[in-house]
């Protein structure tokens, strides 16, 4: 018999069930050093563009 779940567990289960989850590839790329070195440059460029647009 399945043990009865507490309201807390049910709530947590439902929230997680309907949320988008990353795939294994996405999770791998998040901490892949070569990919993240490239993303470091890209993100910095995006931020510089925003900074330059903020000055009047």
């Amino acid at each position, binding site marked *: 018999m399945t043990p009865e779940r507490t309201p807390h567990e049910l*709530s947590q289960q439902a929230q997680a069930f309907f949320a988008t989850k990353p795939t294994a590839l996405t999770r791998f790329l998040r901490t892949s*050093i070569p990919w993240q070195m490239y993303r470091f440059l890209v*993100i910095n460029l995006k931020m510089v563009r925003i900074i330059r647009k903020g*000055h009047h």
Partner: protein
Amino acid sequence: MARPRVVILGAGVAGHTSAGFLRKWLGDEAEVTVVSPRPDYNWIPSNIWVGVGLLEPAQVLLPLQPVYARTGIQFLQAKATVLHPEGIEGDPTAFVEAESTLPGKEGEPIRVPYDFLVNATGPKLAFEATPGLGPKGHSLSVCTAPHAKAAALALDEAVERMRRGERQKFLVGTGHGTCTCQGAAFEYIVNLEFELRARGVRHQADITYLTNEFQLGDFGMGGVHIQRGGYVTPSNIFTESLFAERGLRWVTQAHVTGLERGRASLEFLDGGDGEETFDLAMLLPPFKGVGLRALDRMGADITDRLFAPSGFMKVDADYAPKPFGDWRAADWPRTYQAPAFPNLFAAGIAFAPPHPISRPRQSPKGTSITPAPPRTGMPSATIGKAVARNIVDLIRGAKEPRHTASMAEMGAACVASAGANPFRGTAAAITVFPIVPDFERFPEHGRDPRHTFGEIGLAGHWIKILLHHLFLYKAKMRPFWSLIPE
């Protein structure tokens, strides 16, 4: 002829930035004085890491006196209490009344005359708005370095209990229906979860995010929409995903009506009541103005001419009450000059926003459960710099301020740590343009999709580390500091 006197109240991001640029641009043309009740500058974004025990307070604090002594800025460690923008009868010299906070001289009155004044006093942490909230009550905070250190010590104790086999409940989020700075609560909960994993006790922890946001990912900015994976996706999807992936539970649309030991009482937007129990709670307070008063030359109270009921200073915004559908980007201030006194400016959190950014909502009981607009970090510094530029121009004869820094015309770059480790850590790097949505320019989502971006990964963590060191270097006003962007 006497040099003009520029006085800056507050030495946070906005005030310190203003002071540095005023000194740099004015040289010996003017006296620059900073009045701040605390002796240190605090790089607040890194308080999160103090709060999980990865940094010590000294690593996020910078003593102000040596920096100001080296750069020729006068520093008064004092708390401003009353503005006299018209001076007093018989002497029209404007001045600020302050009380010393120097050890041994606490409460001694100080009178600081000014020709130009920048109010960059930041927020009052209004823990008293919720009974039992805050370090003097039953919850922790990461708003100041000492608060964050206390949170780290409490976390250490909780970890010890978990190692002994006790299960622990953590509650992280906002402690009132009108809180802002949800980004800090977001960073704290994901760093907490990361740290519990690093210490090998994650399996013993139930972690809940409690927020006044209508949906996760609102962040007081009405959320953002990001192009990714062939879709334009709202930020609640990304935030829910991050929480679900880490096994974090979330409770939205909540106002905390009171805290007791281990228990938070809640009121929800739909009118229902609720409760969350906890062993450790880190709940942010709402922000208010610091309580400055203003008097005219005859001594009559003119506080309501200069300040909104929230205590924040009125500037060149459109404060006329209007429904959500009538809000416009043009409502937001551009020069931060006080309409009543052209030599008075407010920068950073100290200026009164014309209205929230997120859609305002009330419970059936009339309780406002709406995030207040964020104006920390990059916008604060950008505003501080624009105010400094305008004061320089006015001193040199300009008739009116020309430099603008409207939050509806500027973007922001934000890096939210999601776990600190040079190889396994991650952070969400986010850019938005503009901060305040402009639905006339960008009808669909209010923001420019080309410049509104978000991504989580190790690169974000490296950027966060870089920013920590760059901005502390900049705050020290070492060579070439002014080349580091806001």
